[in-house]
């Protein structure tokens, strides 16, 4: 997808969230999208589609031709995923800061329906600048939504640079804790740490701050603000694939 799109893609925020989505889809209980008791996975950071579409494809929700249609005319699969239950997509992402609020409504509805499921929402760290996020965090603990897990892809970057330079977030664990969450920080590239954290049960809503590296695994884009949305030439793509294969010990 990153190389076939001529428009470019959100490489940085896709690759920072790769393990998060892999672990999330291994933990989340989604046998079928028609199962009302399924866990809900809501992607607030809608631009992580390189990881998200890949996870949905691995889970069998997306077909190979869906991936191949990425950012082609007439496609349903573009830079921000759009709600499409038959394809496993619960939420139309894109506008930052919206997803957690939506997830609180979903979590409340699931509780009201007497379901014993869980609602996961993945947010980026940059989008936490949005005021509405904090409205919804207050509301989540006020409604005692212990079926809700907020995951933050803490890759430390937003469009203009480091979050701590643009709008300092400082300790997210402290912030979430003070908003009534059971908050924990993990290595966002460790599948075992992520998997354990996603299984966390609490009497409060849970927040998982996953420390990640923007454009993780691609040396020439890692921790580079230009990786936020960029084009990959065929040559650069081949180099990236080589590096990722080496890092993960793939053939």
């Amino acid at each position, binding site marked *: 997808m990153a190389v076939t799109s001529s428009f470019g893609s959100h490489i940085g925020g896709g690759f920072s969230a790769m393990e998060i989505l892999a672990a999330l889809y291994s933990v989340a209980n989604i046998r079928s999208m028609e199962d009302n008791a399924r866990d809900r996975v809501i992607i607030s950071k809608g631009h992580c589609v390189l990881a998200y579409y890949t996870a949905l494809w691995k889970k069998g929700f997306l077909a190979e031709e869906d991936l191949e249609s990425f950012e082609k005319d007439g496609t349903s699969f573009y830079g921000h995923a759009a*709600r499409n239950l038959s394809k496993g997509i*619960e939420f*139309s992402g894109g*506008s930052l800061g*919206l997803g*957690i*609020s*939506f*997830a*609180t*409504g*979903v*979590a*409340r*509805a*699931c509780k*009201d*329906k007497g379901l014993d499921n869980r609602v996961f929402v993945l947010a980026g760290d940059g989008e936490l600048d949005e*005021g*509405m996020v904090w*409205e*919804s965090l*207050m*509301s989540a603990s*006020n*409604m005692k939504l212990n079926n809700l897990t907020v995951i933050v892809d803490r890759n430390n970057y937003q469009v203009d640079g480091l979050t701590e330079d643009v709008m300092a977030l400082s300790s997210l664990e402290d912030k979430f804790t003070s908003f009534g969450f059971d908050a924990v920080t993990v290595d966002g590239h460790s599948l075992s740490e992520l998997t354990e954290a996603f299984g966390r049960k609490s009497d409060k809503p849970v927040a998982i701050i996953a420390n990640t590296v923007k454009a993780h695994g691609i040396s020439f884009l890692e921790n580079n603000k230009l990786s936020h949305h960029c084009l990959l030439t065929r040559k650069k793509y081949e180099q990236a694939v080589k590096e990722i294969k080496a890092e993960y010990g793939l053939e």
Partner: protein
Amino acid sequence: MDWSKFNIKLMSMAGQGGSAFGMALMEIAQSRSDFRVLSADMSTPAGLDKFKATYPERFINVGIAEQNLIGTAAGLASEGIRPICVAQSCFLSMRSFEQIRQYAGYMNFPLIIVGIASGLSLQYFGNTHFAVEDLALMRMVPSLAVVSPCDSLEAAKALDAAMSYDGPVYIRLFGGPGVPSVYGQDYDFSIGRAIRLREGNDVEILATGSMVKTAMGAAQLLESNGVQASVVNMHTIKPLDTGAINLERKILVTMEEHRNFGGLGGAVSEFLGGMAKHPPLLRIGFGDGNIKVGSYACMLQEAGLSAEGVAEAILGKLK
């Protein structure tokens, strides 16, 4: 749902957004439970306290947070629970405009969005609290029906209709207690179908919300001046019932407690723009610029939104 004369009188005394709406909710709650009422710290002003006390499990207060109000409502709607979101019209339509576009428009969830205290209802609170742009904003949201009821009974009927409407609905309520009734008895109401209240061959007055009653007064004044005016209750701004507009008149007039562009006047202008021939249109409402604060009656009069002011403007246009 049937409304007795007793209830109609009671609701009129209570006012549209003050309590008629709460009374209607109590009625609706008796026959269905597949909905939630969400409020942004507006339970008491919107007359919802009785509902909240009777059905605490169906009521969610998100605090003074209109954006999260709509976001939470959308989450509920995605799970098949119909949300009724209540806040002041000005903040609901402006602070959470993007959320409304996202969830009612883009994701097409059937939200029922109820704005209370629209227009100049909040009087001495001043321009921060006036909602005179909400119709324009809400009209821009794809597939969102925009309804502006003319009295307390119509507010109740609009809510009832919205509960079974196939799509999201914005309902604009106005005023405090003591809203003058347009309708003394129950009648047929459906979203998107305008209601002709009076027939007259010279002038076609299309009025919405609080201005319907004023239009009836203006029509009477015109009659004493030998001018025959029709009055149509355009309670739905979108979809606009263009088929209800009679173009065989000397002039057309729109009346709204809103800016005279972007709302009903704007919608009618857009419709007329596509016609090869049509009578001239007089758009009555607030112009551009801030509104000089005063009592409700004084501000309406200053803007020419009294029966006398409207009649005078129409007579001037007919000359």
